[in-house]
């Protein structure tokens, strides 16, 4: 990497890859502080029950046990970002089977695991409600005192009645989507200890160190300054570590015992207690004209948030905002419910509420195309929104909008052009089809305040340290931030050190979610560089009496007034000498608009878009679907690092494939039946398709170097593309994902396809 002006867009190799590949990188689960206690969590036995009493005497006297903690030990026993509705340790009742009831801290792993079984909890089981529609009925068991509606909102835009009255085509459907489990490979993990100043330090896998710190401090009823949170490399998160997991429990053990502690969830515990993607029921009625214009959408959205709100209220907003797809739908009526049940807690998961509605809407659009007899991509192009359009909520699309360009690329791609050509398949019971779907989602946190800071420090050797609280959850943000810094300051990327995710040492760059960490950090970094330029001017002014008119960073150092070049090491020395300090902080606030009535964060200003095309082969006799090929066309803004970019999209596509076809969390009466990775299957190397990722590089003016969010966009339209392909291949209209072989088989049988083939078999035989 010698040409310095080329870091942005260059396939720079990630700095963390080597230590990860050689096993020397430390994750939270790899830490064993001296003299630590093993922590074990007792979780609820029932999906819904009153706690009449907890007797921990047997556990406390078990050899090796140092402490058994219950709700009585928690200073403020409710946490949660949107609603403080979640107990640190359950007191009055348990609301799902993963609910934590008590903690054991012991000298050995065996003692901790054994003692958990010696805690006697007197439960009075209550009827559980596990169906969100049942939960909405007046006579339903109540998960919370306040009732089962966590959030409800109704929105109307334009004249829906009039649009339906003049529509030529109305398509109606009820779609259901499943509970997806993050299944990150490193389970929720952390350690804690007291530092030399007596502060509680928690080192844990997470996504938002400053927010986690606030949650810990709140629960422990101590000032935030008493708590330090460090997030080392995280073995996958995808939103599943956006909420607090082990952090408060660890801090509590250390606060009560004064000892270091370690808590790493077992896979089963992770599956049961961790948050999930909201299962959804979506009813849609969509009106269109004969010439293919989408006129109106009537939508009812029911998301099951399980026992607690978690980030559900915001997830519901994303569902609402994106349920009309990237289209010029002129009127919409949306009724949305976020419902408490005694199921596992649902919260953030890559796509944050959008994949569910995208599945529904993109199925609708495909059905409309079939009804009209128009190419599904053409139909989408007719309706695609453009930059500057007024979207259905009345908001102007001011950021880059590349959906039309994506669709154009998709239309010309051989997978689409030749989709009906290769007709020959090995067996008569195999059917091939190619499907398409579009996706959109806002990035940044919309109308909610969204602000972040990044620090830049010049070292005396001329190298640079960039600090921020962004977390490295696998997405490569650390390298991307380093690339941006290298580009802005014109230093070799190896000379940029990145200090991340430590509340003590890195400024608050807000949460790592909503695909906008690079956007936020990159912009804060730009501000920091501006601050640094000002500081150089101050320095020169102090030294020479005249304020320079221009200061620019060049490969040789900082160029003052286009004559004096000061190498960075010299600049650092002089800043230090004159008492200016070698560190600057840049703060960026995402521009935002007023939220529309009835919403929290609608509208966003910035959106990401993409189109997925999937080829499927369906075995009609078994209902199994294989996906040999996927093409993802992504409006990526400017791509900062092409390896990271394609990696993000490929990973998202395969997660989307799992969501579409195989990932089925079976929950019966509130009990999870699929508690391990042999019953809850995620795609393996054998399931993964050949993936072609095509970036459509629009330019996001507000983004750093034109970049936009890319973390979630890859998953948005995968499931509908796959299911649309199945519909194309077999002439059935599936409405439910995961589309398991069982579900599809019965659908094919209903459609008569199985029997027709069976009848044929004799002749083929």
């Amino acid at each position, binding site marked *: 990497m010698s040409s310095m002006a080329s870091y942005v867009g260059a396939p720079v190799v990630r700095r963390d890859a*080597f230590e990860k*590949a050689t096993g020397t990188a430390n994750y939270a689960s790899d830490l064993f502080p001296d003299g630590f206690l093993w922590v074990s969590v007792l979780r609820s036995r029932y999906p819904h029950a009153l706690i009449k009493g907890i007797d921990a005497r047997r556990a406390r006297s078990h050899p090796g046990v140092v402490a058994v903690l219950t709700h009585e030990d928690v200073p403020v026993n409710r946490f949660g970002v949107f609603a403080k509705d979640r107990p640190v340790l359950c007191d009055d009742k348990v609301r799902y089977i993963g609910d934590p009831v008590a903690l054991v801290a012991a000298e050995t792993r065996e003692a901790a695991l054994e003692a958990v079984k010696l805690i006697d909890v007197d439960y009075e089981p209550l009827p559980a409600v596990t169906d969100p529609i049942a939960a909405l009925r007046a006579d339903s068991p109540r998960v919370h005192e306040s009732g089962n509606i966590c959030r409800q909102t109704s929105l109307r835009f334009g004249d829906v009645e009039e649009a339906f009255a003049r529509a030529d085509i109305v398509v109606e459907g009820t779609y259901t989507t499943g509970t997806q489990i993050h299944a*990150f*490979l490193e389970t929720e993990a952390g350690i804690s200890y007291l530092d030399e100043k007596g502060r509680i330090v928690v080192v844990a896998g997470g996504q938002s160190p400053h927010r986690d710190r606030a949650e810990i401090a709140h629960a422990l009823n101590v000032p935030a300054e008493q708590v330090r949170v460090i997030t080392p490399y995280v073995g996958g998160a995808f939103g599943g570590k956006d909420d607090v997991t082990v952090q408060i429990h660890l801090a509590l053990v250390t606060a009560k015992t004064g000892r270091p502690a370690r808590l790493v969830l077992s896979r089963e515990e992770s599956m049961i207690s961790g948050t999930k993607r909201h299962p959804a029921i979506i009813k849609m009625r969509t009106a269109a004209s004969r010439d293919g214009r989408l006129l109106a959408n009537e939508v009812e959205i029911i998301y099951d948030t399980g026992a607690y709100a978690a980030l559900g209220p915001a997830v519901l907003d994303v569902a609402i905002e994106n349920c009309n797809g990237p289209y010029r739908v002129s009127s919409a009526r949306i009724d949305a419910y976020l419902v408490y049940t005694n199921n596992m807690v649902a919260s953030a998961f890559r796509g944050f509420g959008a994949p569910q509605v995208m599945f529904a809407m993109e199925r609708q659009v495909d059905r409309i195309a079939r009804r009209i007899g128009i190419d599904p991509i053409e139909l989408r192009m007719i309706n695609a929104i453009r930059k500057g359009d007024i979207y259905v909520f009345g908001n102007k699309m001011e950021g880059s909008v590349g959906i039309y360009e994506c669709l154009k690329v998709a239309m010309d791609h051989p997978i689409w052009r030749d989709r009906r050509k290769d007709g020959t398949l090995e067996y008569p019971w195999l059917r091939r089809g190619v499907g398409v779907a579009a996706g959109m989602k806002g990035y940044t946190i919309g109308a909610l305040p969204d602000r972040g800071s990044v620090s830049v420090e010049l070292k005396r050797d001329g190298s640079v340290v960039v600090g921020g609280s962004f977390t490295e959850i696998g997405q490569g943000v650390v390298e991307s931030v380093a690339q941006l810094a290298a580009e802005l300051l014109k230093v070799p990327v190896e000379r940029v050190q990145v200090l991340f995710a430590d509340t003590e040492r890195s400024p608050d760059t807000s949460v790592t979610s909503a695909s906008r960490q690079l956007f936020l950090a990159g912009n804060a970094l730009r501000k920091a560089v501006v601050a640094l330029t000002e500081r150089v001017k101050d320095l020169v002014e102090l030294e020479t009496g005249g304020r320079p008119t221009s200061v620019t960073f060049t490969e040789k150092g900082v160029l003052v007034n286009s004559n004096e070049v000061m190498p960075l090491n010299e600049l650092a020395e002089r800043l230090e000498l004159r008492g200016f300090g070698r560190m600057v902080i840049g703060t960026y606030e995402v521009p935002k608009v007023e939220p529309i009535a009835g919403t929290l964060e609608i509208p966003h200003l910035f959106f990401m878009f993409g189109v997925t095309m999937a080829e499927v082969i369906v075995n009609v006799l078994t209902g199994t679907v294989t996906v040999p090929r996927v093409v993802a066309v992504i409006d990526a803004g400017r791509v900062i690092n092409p390896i990271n970019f394609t990696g993000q999209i490929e990973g998202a596509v395969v997660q989307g494939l799992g969501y579409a076809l195989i990932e089925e969390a079976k929950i019966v009466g509130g009990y999870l039946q699929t508690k391990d990775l*042999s019953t809850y299957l995620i795609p*393996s190397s054998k399931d993964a398709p050949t993936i072609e990722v095509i970036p459509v590089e629009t330019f996001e003016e507000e983004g750093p170097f034109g970049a936009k969010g890319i973390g979630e966009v890859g998953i948005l339209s995968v499931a509908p593309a796959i299911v649309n392909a199945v519909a194309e291949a077999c002439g059935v209209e599936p409405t439910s994902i995961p589309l398991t072989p069982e579900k599809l088989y019965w659908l094919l049988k209903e459609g008569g396809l199985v029997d027709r083939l069976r009848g044929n078999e004799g002749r083929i035989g």
Partner: protein
Amino acid sequence: MIKPTTMSRRIEKEFRFFLNGKAMTVRAPPCHTLLEILRYELRMTGTKEGCARGDCGECTVLLNGEPVHSCLTVMTQVEGKNVTTIEGIDPEHRLVRSFVEAGAVQCGHCTPGLIISSYALLLKRPRPTEEEVKEAIRGNLCRCTGYSKIVKAVLSAAGV
């Protein structure tokens, strides 16, 4: 009332084996798994734990050259054998380099297990086909990458 079992009553045995070429002796209950010994006793954390029940492949090590799930391998099976973990793979090895360069490492938690499985494959099949690579790593789950870059990395390490 159930009488609790205590630590002091656990039966321990001495096991001798070779770990990355070095002779080792550990005392442990015979039912302890190799993974527990590696991570909890020896604190060699390069070998990861993803499920502790044979489903994810993160804990893959070589036992006399064969890839095994160390979470399903009890210490009695290890007695007298050669164990190779990620710490025993040369950091300069072409597999490490190709994983790093191909972008096959995201969160990286699956990577050590994948490198071990691929290493075992290349011992047997120095020039594998794409299908053979996919087959060899089918038991190694990765939630981040979608596998494309992993398969490419193994093929490129093999010079295919």
